[in-house]
Each structure stands twice: as structure tokens, then as C-alpha cells.
């Protein structure tokens, strides 16, 4: 069974296009200046509707993680064990991603990370993932 891939829509297409080029985007509100994740048509902080994508530095810290050893989701069975993580980007927003190429014993909250881009079964989709900042 194939893993679920993002179902891209008009609002999110620039994000996935950029990921394919190795760039990580987040949204920023032109009204209040706050960064926002995930992209929406409104700013959840000031409720303004003038938002734009900006390129993120691609660095952040591991906020929370779990090494998934067993899963009922059989499409991920071949990936076990894999790391589900929440990363706090330097821009202040949090994203979900997998941590790759970090030994399990080195995983800890607040570990510095940087984005890496991983191909998927669909050549049009490249998934942002994260690895240790020093790797």
C-alpha cells in the first residue's frame, strides 16, 4: 500500500513547488508581521487576510518526537522504525516532519536541526524532513 502523499491545492502549490527546488516556505502575515504555519487564507493571530509566503532559514529545534516502532498504518510498515517529530523553526512556527539520519540515542528535545528534502514515490512531491544541524 502506498504512503499518503500531499493533496496539493491552489493555496499550497507554491510551498510544494519550492520544496521541489530545495526551499522551505512558511507564511507571513503582511498585517501583523507574524509567521504562520500551516498556510491559510487568514492570519489566526490578527485575522487579517493579506498573507504571503517567505523562505524560511530551514533551521530549528526538535520540540517533540516519537520513534514509531509499531503502527496500524500498514503503508508505513516498511519505514519502521521512523521518527515522527514536531520542529520549532527559527521563525517561531512549528511543523511536523520526520527526522532522518540521526541515531536514535542522539534524539532529544531541543536538538538543533536543519531541513533536508526527500523524494517520494511521486516525482512531483518532495517532502521536507529534518536532520541534525551539524550533519
Amino acid at each position, binding site marked *: 500500500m502506498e504512503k*499518503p502523499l*500531499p*493533496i496539493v*491545492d491552489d493555496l499550497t502549490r507554491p510551498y510544494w513547488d519550492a520544496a521541489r527546488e530545495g526551499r522551505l516556505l512558511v507564511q507571513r502575515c503582511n498585517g501583523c508581521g507574524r509567521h504562520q504555519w*500551516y498556510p491559510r487564507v487568514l492570519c489566526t493571530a490578527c485575522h487579517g487576510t493579506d498573507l504571503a509566503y517567505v523562505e524560511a532559514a530551514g533551521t530549528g529545534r526538535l520540540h517533540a518526537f516519537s520513534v514509531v516502532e509499531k503502527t496500524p498504518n500498514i503503508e508505513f510498515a516498511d519505514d519502521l522504525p*521512523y521518527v515522527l517529530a514536531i520542529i520549532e523553526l527559527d521563525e517561531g512556527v512549528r511543523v*511536523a516532519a520526520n527526522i532522518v539520519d540521526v541515531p536514535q540515542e542522539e534524539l*532529544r*528535545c531541543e536538538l538543533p536541526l536543519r531541513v533536508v528534502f526527500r523524494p517520494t514515490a511521486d516525482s512531483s512531491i518532495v*517532502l521536507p524532513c529534518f536532520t541534525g544541524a551539524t550533519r
Partner: protein
Amino acid sequence: MAFPAGEVAIVGAYESPLRKAPGVHPFAIQADCVLGALADAGLELGDVDGFATAASFPTEGGMQMSISEVAEYLGIHPRWFDSTDIGGAAFITHAGHAALAIAAGVADVVVVSYAAAGYSGVIPGPDYATNAAGPGQFEIPYGPSTVSTYALAAERHMHRYGTTLEQLAAIAVQCRANAGSNPQARFRDPITVEDVLSSPMVATPLHRLDCCIVSDSGGAFVMTSRRRAEALGRRAAYVLGFGEALGQLSMNQMEDFTTTAAVHSGARAFASAGLRPEEIDCAQIYDSFTITVLLTLEALGFCAPGEGGAFVESGAIAPGGRLPINTDGGGLSSNHPGRRGVFTVIEAYRQLTGTAPGVQLPDPRTCLVSGTGGSLSATATMILGR
């Protein structure tokens, strides 16, 4: 309108004794539970004019319009109904909404029911709460199994407060001890902290015994006005307070991984009841995972943030402790067919009416129930009393 504290009663309840029921459709279990709860209340199906359920998961037998499907199966045409779906906590929310409807005169006799073939009815498929479109396109591709989403909170709580795996395990050990005297409980043999820590890892830091069991079962309870409850002359537990709260569904939107929306649903429940945590005699805390209990105890104010580990390790949650919890064995050991909210209310009713199947606390006056649905997504808290 202020919450009608003490004006609505639970007058009957029934928990299916089934734990494994291959070949039985969940609607059949629900019907058995509805009839059982009505019989306990001295009422009949013809008396029911309000109904609440949520049965849209594959193992629950229904789909998006499950309230219509289950009401049709029962052959009832309620004038008030609710199918609010916030995952496992839904039935506590239904009870709160029903209390308001009954007090407003919109319904007279409400049945809240639930059943699922969580053990036998497993349909291969993902356990995500959403799909990879819209907000889910930024999370589902990374494989957030339900256990792993709660595990994120456990890891962060351990990082921030130094909470230990042994403290989390103490919750599972206590629930199993309680299950030991409940003849209906799925697992009754005592376990130790070491047993929990040596059980297979599912998603770090949560082991298999940190996770609720999986069963085929169901339950139902009946609610009506104080006046009708008194006319029935049966044992009753009264709804003293209620609160509900929405957090998030996507884990990347969770504001604080060390607490839950129960901070708000709990505060609303205590305010509507005019009670404080110190005045609660026992509690049924939704135990999807050990971490769910620890976060909820802190969020409700039974201990300070970060002190949940010490609280559960102190014996406070045992019968005879400061706040006995999950007296029937909880979802960790007794019954969890997919969503547990209905059983938390049923066990609260049984404790307050002296009809518990297992551990019966001596004369509790108040019992709090609090549920967590989704991936630490939404909570509902209800305070019941005599």
C-alpha cells in the same frame, strides 16, 4: 442560561459484558446497551425522546450520518439528538448537551449510547483523524499514528518536568489493580511497573502497557429531569457541572505539549458546579494512554503542572487515596472498543449509586469524569454527584 446544576439526573446505565464478539455488528451491541440502560432506569424505548451517539468509525458500523443510522436501527424518532464528534470524549459532551436540552424542556428522556467492534471488526486502514488534503497535507505524509501523537506529549512532558517512565507506568499498574476485582474487565492479572517497561515499545516513550486495550463492547446511560428521576424512585446521579473545550487536531498546531484543553473544560465544569478540585471524591479519567491521565490530572488542577508524576506515584489515585481514579480498570485494563467516554460516565454513575461491578468506593459524594478525544484534541469534563 446558567448551567442547570443538579437539575438533570442519570437514572440508568449499562455496560456490555462483551469484550470479544466476533461476528456481532456494533449496532446490535448498541441496541443491547440501550435496552439494558433503560431497564436499569425502569423506562422503555417508547419513553425515549432524545438520543445521542457517534458511530462513524469503520469499527462502529455507521458512517457520516451515524445518528440517523443508529436511531433507525433502534426504530426511534427522537425530537432531540446530538452526534457531536470529538473522538473518544464525545459521549461526555453528549451528556452535557443533553443536560441543557432536558433542563430547557426540549427533551425528557435522553439515551446516550456507544458500541464498536474494536477488536474483531478491524478493517485494514489508517488510524489518522484526517486525510492528506487541506491542513492534513502537512502532517499525514509523515505517518502520525494515534499512539505516536500522544507519545509526542509524553516526551515533551518528560523533557520539561523530568517525568519518568516509571511514573507513567504507575497509572497502568493502578488501573490493572482496579480491574482485578471487576469480573467484566478484559485483563485482570496484576502487573508491575517493570512489566510495563518491559512490554514492547509501540512509539517511544510509550510501551504497549501504556496503551489502552482493544475490545468489542458498548455502553449506554439514560438521563432525565430531577423531577422525573424522583418520580421514578430509582437510584440517580445528578449532573452538577459540565465544560467542554476544543484544542487542535494537527499536532503541529498544539500550543503546549505538556497540557490539554482540559484546563478549560475543567475550569468550566468546576465553575458551573461551584466546586473545587478538593471537593471531588473520585474521578474517571479517560486513559487512552498513561500520559493522557497524567496530563488531565494536572490540567484539572488535582495537582500542579509538572507534579503529575509524583501525584500518581504517591498512591493518590488508588482506592483510599486522595483521588481514586478509573475504579473499573479503565481503558487501560477493562474496556476500550475505540472510544471510552461513555464508560467514564457509566462508572461514575455506578460509584455514586453503589452499583460498581468491581472496586466500590465507600459512599463517594462526587465523581468527576473527563475525556480527551482525537490526538489530545478536544476535552469534555462533567461533575456528577448524589
